[in-house]
């Protein structure tokens, strides 16, 4: 059956190429939608993990890093550092801002850091050396055509772009400044009655002694300092991912479902057109005594072979588009090869090939063997 199906596919190379590209594009669309969703979750998880802390201290009742306001009393830092096993509690402050240039606005999440918590890597330029230095995400630099050394205005306060990194999450680029920059921004902007209005300390990145047990130290800090919660970074990252899933899942789920319906229709269309075109061949096979189930198996085999050809085409297409998107719009990360989701997608594609092959079944059933003996 597979041989017959294979020969059938090779009969018209142009048609086969068109078919493989069409089916491959469907697979690519589904992979890209899944990859976009997975990319969002990955970015959300990575933001906390990239801060490289053993433990993260948040305001009491706050269990996320992204899209939340955490404000810890400054005295809490000394209290946390007094707990056995804690070497240092590195301060980090998160400030959401709206960057506006030429009337184009972008929400930016600014991370203020001192010793830990800065950009994971600098892909261009240098790290922060002076109070007015800022490191921005690549997507922000691309969107506004910003270069190293350019000015970057936050509420009329002038920063200088020292470096470019690549950190974004929740469709927001990140930027990094140090505490000198933050204090200057608050004081010079004179935007509030006193500095305490702003969250001067949002999180603490706890550095533990090599011998310290993370869970025990976390428990000790929570017992010792009432105003804070302590979380392991993995848990905090998972909370951000879960929050992202509440936001993205309903939308992406529907889009992927439409993608699968397109897949079924495309396979069905291809198989139906093929069977209609080969009605006479099927009539001959029927006249020769081939049972309906065998003919159906041949159609199924052909659909699966087409899928086998289309899968690499789809992966290559998706990979190409993903690279293009990430190069042109680095804010988005497309994670095509998340093992579970990738295999699940391929498995469902296998499923829609089978369903697509079932669509023209009636046409085979209704093929009259007498057709084989009629003139063309």
């Amino acid at each position, binding site marked *: 059956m597979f041989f017959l199906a294979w020969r059938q596919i090779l009969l018209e190379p142009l048609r086969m190429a068109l078919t493989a590209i069409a089916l491959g594009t469907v697979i690519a669309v589904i992979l890209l939608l899944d990859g976009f969703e997975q990319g969002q979750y990955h970015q959300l998880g990575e933001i906390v993990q990239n801060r490289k802390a053993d433990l993260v201290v948040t305001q009491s*009742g706050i269990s996320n890093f992204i899209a939340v306001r955490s404000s810890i009393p400054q005295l809490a830092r000394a209290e946390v550092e007094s707990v056995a096993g804690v070497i240092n509690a590195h301060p980090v402050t998160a400030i959401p801002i709206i960057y506006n240039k030429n009337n184009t606005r972008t929400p930016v999440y600014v991370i203020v850091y001192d010793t830990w918590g800065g950009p994971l890597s600098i892909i261009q330029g240098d790290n922060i050396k002076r109070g007015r230095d800022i490191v921005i995400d690549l997507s922000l630099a691309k969107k506004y055509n910003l270069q190293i050394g350019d000015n970057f205005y936050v509420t009329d306060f002038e920063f200088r772009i020292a470096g470019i990194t690549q950190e974004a999450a929740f469709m927001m680029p990140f930027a990094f400044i140090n505490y000198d920059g933050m204090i200057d921004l608050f004081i010079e902007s004179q935007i509030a009655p006193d500095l305490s209005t702003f969250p001067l300390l949002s999180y603490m990145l706890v550095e533990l002694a090599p011998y310290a047990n993370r869970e025990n130290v976390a428990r000790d800090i929570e017992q010792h300092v009432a105003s804070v919660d302590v979380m392991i970074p993995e848990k905090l990252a998972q909370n951000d991912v879960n929050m992202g899933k509440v936001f993205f899942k309903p*939308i992406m789920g529907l889009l992927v479902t439409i993608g699968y319906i397109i897949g079924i229709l495309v396979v069905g269309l291809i198989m139906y057109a093929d069977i209609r075109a080969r009605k006479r061949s099927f009539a001959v096979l029927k006249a020769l005594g081939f049972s309906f189930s065998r003919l159906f198996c041949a159609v199924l085999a052909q659909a699966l072979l087409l899928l086998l050809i289309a899968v690499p085409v789809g992966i290559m297409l998706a990979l190409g588009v993903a690279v293009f998107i990430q190069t042109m719009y680095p804010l988005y990360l497309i994670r095509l090869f998340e093992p579970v989701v990738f295999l699940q997608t391929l498995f469902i594609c296998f499923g829609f090939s089978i369903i697509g092959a079932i669509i023209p079944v009636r046409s085979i059933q209704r093929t009259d063997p007498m057709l084989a003996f009629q003139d063309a």
Partner: protein
Amino acid sequence: MLKWTWKSVFSQRGTLIGSVLGIACTFILVIFFDAVWRGESEQVVSYPAHMKPDVWVMQSGVGNMHMAMSFVWDWKADKIAKLPGVKQVTPILYLNSIVTSEQNQIFAFIVGLLPDNKRAGPWKLSAGRHIENPLETVIPDVLAKISNLNIADKIHIADKLFTIVGMSSGTYSSANPVLFVPFSDLEDLLASTGTYSYLLVDADEGTRPEVLVQRIRDEVDKVNVLTHEEFINNDYSMAIQMGVEIIVIMTIICSVLAALIVGFTSYSLVIRRRRELAIIKALGVRSINILTSVILQAIIVTSIGFGIAVFFALFILPYTTLLQPQLTLSLSLSSLTHIGMIAFIVAVLGALLPAWHVSRMEAASAYHV
């Protein structure tokens, strides 16, 4: 030739149905993506749009509400209230944060209201009542539905536990469900004594907002003052800008897919009718007429597919919110027209390959057995 084209398209109904459905689905995917983004962007401005003061006052350097943080000294509100042409000033506190219920964690916009401040509160309650006491909250009815929350249930905002006393309509979007809490509770959470986030300024009758904007700018330092229209436009354009690249990419990918389906369909039709086409060529019909016919076939197939997609978008898509109440969809005539124009290009592109095939066809092949 026109008649032959028409007959040819409808001669293979199965192929035609499969093609138009495939094409329709690809356009539905684009329309759906666009509608979701547009709907979310409209919902992002739902709260300020319903408040509709004449003028918005906020921190200097801030020009919108979505994802923004703004602090304005409280005495500035008093000063503005005394300016000529000002009818009333309604201050609100505002915070982006995570709301935690038993079932999930949701990113939300939290608005702190002064006692008896109905001006800036929920505009329509679908259940319960307005907030009257500390630690009470009004949440969007859709949020209540998807999180399985009822009146008297509790939710966490940071370390404070709020009791749900009311549910509001029209205040939910995936990007920003709007919750209302007492001003003093949010003030505690923000540790922001002596400040407001935004001031909603209503003008006296006969005072033009633009004039009032200038007057406030002249009299009050370090604030940004915008008319309602400017403020809404800033938020809406930012929300749309955030998704515009993804919509463009999705449109391109889906259009390529639609072009391939059109190409496949036209190719199938041409292959099936190749002897007829060869005979037509042998009879002396010019190639340009045959090519026009092939392109016309592609346009017919694409138009039917696009028509189904538009029908689906107008009459079926709005009901998806019954299945997924958290989605807000908004169809725009301009984007449908835009996609329609793309559909036309898709049809022509899809017809190129079969047209090339036809142009290479030998008239003599009509006589082959």
